């Protein structure tokens, strides 16, 4: 019999999972779909450590997504443009532009990090503990802080560089 409090887990983890995924696939709707897919699988599997499990599966899903998104890039860009045109008509154009530029700068800054640094940062920001991050990235717990310290500094430097270009 499962002892997982699914309601609590879902409420507390789903937004973090979407945020985590969004910074990997850079598509809010897709991130939400993938987070749902991860939860669907968790509901089926009822893993012993569901939080860590969810993030591991989400990372796998995002990686799979990255493989195909390259092939669909042109298609996606076209669709996105249409969506953005529609959304832009409803928002303040200047604010919308600023938001998009800022998002693009964050993406570029994150992309400049090493994979391990980026993963550690995103997992931490998604609410994972040092122990969970260590397990997922196969690090010692003591090395997580070092990784995060480096990742944060590099992110701040890279963002400053991109934003002031």
């Amino acid at each position: 019999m499962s002892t997982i409090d699914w309601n609590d887990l879902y409420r507390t983890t789903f937004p973090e999972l979407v945020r985590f995924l969004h910074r990997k696939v850079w598509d809010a709707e897709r991130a939400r779909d993938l987070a749902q897919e991860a939860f669907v699988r968790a509901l089926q599997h009822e893993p012993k450590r569901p939080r860590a499990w969810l993030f591991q599966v989400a990372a796998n899903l995002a990686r799979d997504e990255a493989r195909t998104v390259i092939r669909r890039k042109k298609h996606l860009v076209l669709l996105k443009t249409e969506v953005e045109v529609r959304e832009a008509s409803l928002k303040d154009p200047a604010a919308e532009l600023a938001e998009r530029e800022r998002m693009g700068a964050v993406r570029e800054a994150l992309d400049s990090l090493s994979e391990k640094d980026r993963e550690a940062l995103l997992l931490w920001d998604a609410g994972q503990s040092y122990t969970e991050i260590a397990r997922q990235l196969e690090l010692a717990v003591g090395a997580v802080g070092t990784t995060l310290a480096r990742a944060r500094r590099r992110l701040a430097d890279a963002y400053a560089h991109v934003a002031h270009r």
Partner: protein
Amino acid sequence: MSHIDKGALHAYLDGALDEYPAAEAARIRGHLDACGECADMLAAERLIRSDASTILSYASPDVELPTLEELRAYVKATRPAPRPAAARMYRMGWAASVVLALGAGWMARDGQLQQVRANSDFGPQLETEAASPAATPAEAGDRLRSVSAVGRPASEEGVELSVLDVAGDRDEAGPTAARKVTAPEAPAVRVLGEQELLSAVVVESDAGLASGEIVVANSPNEAGVATGGGAEVVEADDVFADQETASPPPPEVMAELVAVQDAPSDAVASARVAEQSLDSVAMNAGAAEPDEAEAKEEQVERRSAESLVPVTSAFAAGGRGVRQDELADDRDFEEEPALAVPGYEVLSVTALGEGSTPIGVQVVQRIEGDLIVELFRLEPGVDPGVLPPVREGRNQLRANTPGGWIVIRGALTEVQLRILVESLFRN
């Protein structure tokens, strides 16, 4: 007294010192209370941490949270209940390839190979011809047995092996029963990439056992064929390879397969040794902690026990893989499916097969723009292994329905292909 390093400072700021050994945590706290230099560094790192969090917050989407009940309902409606035995099997990780074995059995049935030539869109894929007669006359009870082993490195998911009696006992035998299947326009045994999987197919018939009909694709970088006359079926499976995690197959597996190749007169015994070896590798593969391993296995398993089986195929040409997934449980697919996915333009409908032997229908549909999907509806009993290989850049999903296999291919994700397949059954 040594100062505190930045990693420990960030652990302090993150409230993660409780996850450190108690003595080390106490030392860090005590030092920070007493050392002005470290306190200054802590303030500087606090700013960096804050900046990083602010930057990340710029990329936070608005999340609309569906209710858990909605999610549960979705699971109930779309995902079959777990099948424990199958689940355990797939926990061993390796996807077993039976596609070829089924295809071989199907083609070899009744002692008459059927030439499979897909329609003109595909060009000739397979040709058949009579092989050299077996060295010794076949005896009654000629039997085709295939052992198909597909491996991934032990570092990831282990090994799964499948043994399948394809044709069972046959009443007729003799030289005419021995056939050869080759793919003349492509290497009969494909060269697999450095980080590719291992695929081995051993085909035995009683008629040719003495001379040994063995086909082994003993990759990672090459494939070999050993035959002694008699029946042979040569077609290495494609196996999906996770390019980021795959590594060459374990040496012990290679050794066993080479042994099979070198000892054709004892093909079945060797194959069984190989099976045991592969199994042993699988059992020893899970070095990770249970949950971690469980989550990693989910990469394969998520398409397996409950819903999708990672199948077989994947050879990565030029570093790119092709994924094929199989819907393992077909309880969702008992009703008669639509011929085409509703709501999308049908570009063509083509009968597959040749002469009086139809094997199915191919429907090509446009999803949007130049994005198309190919939908194959095969006749009952026709194995999807007869279809041409999946082209690079496309994925495949298969569903075994009472009306025959349904195969869908396109440059779409697993989830998208699944949605399309499921929509066939929602008329």
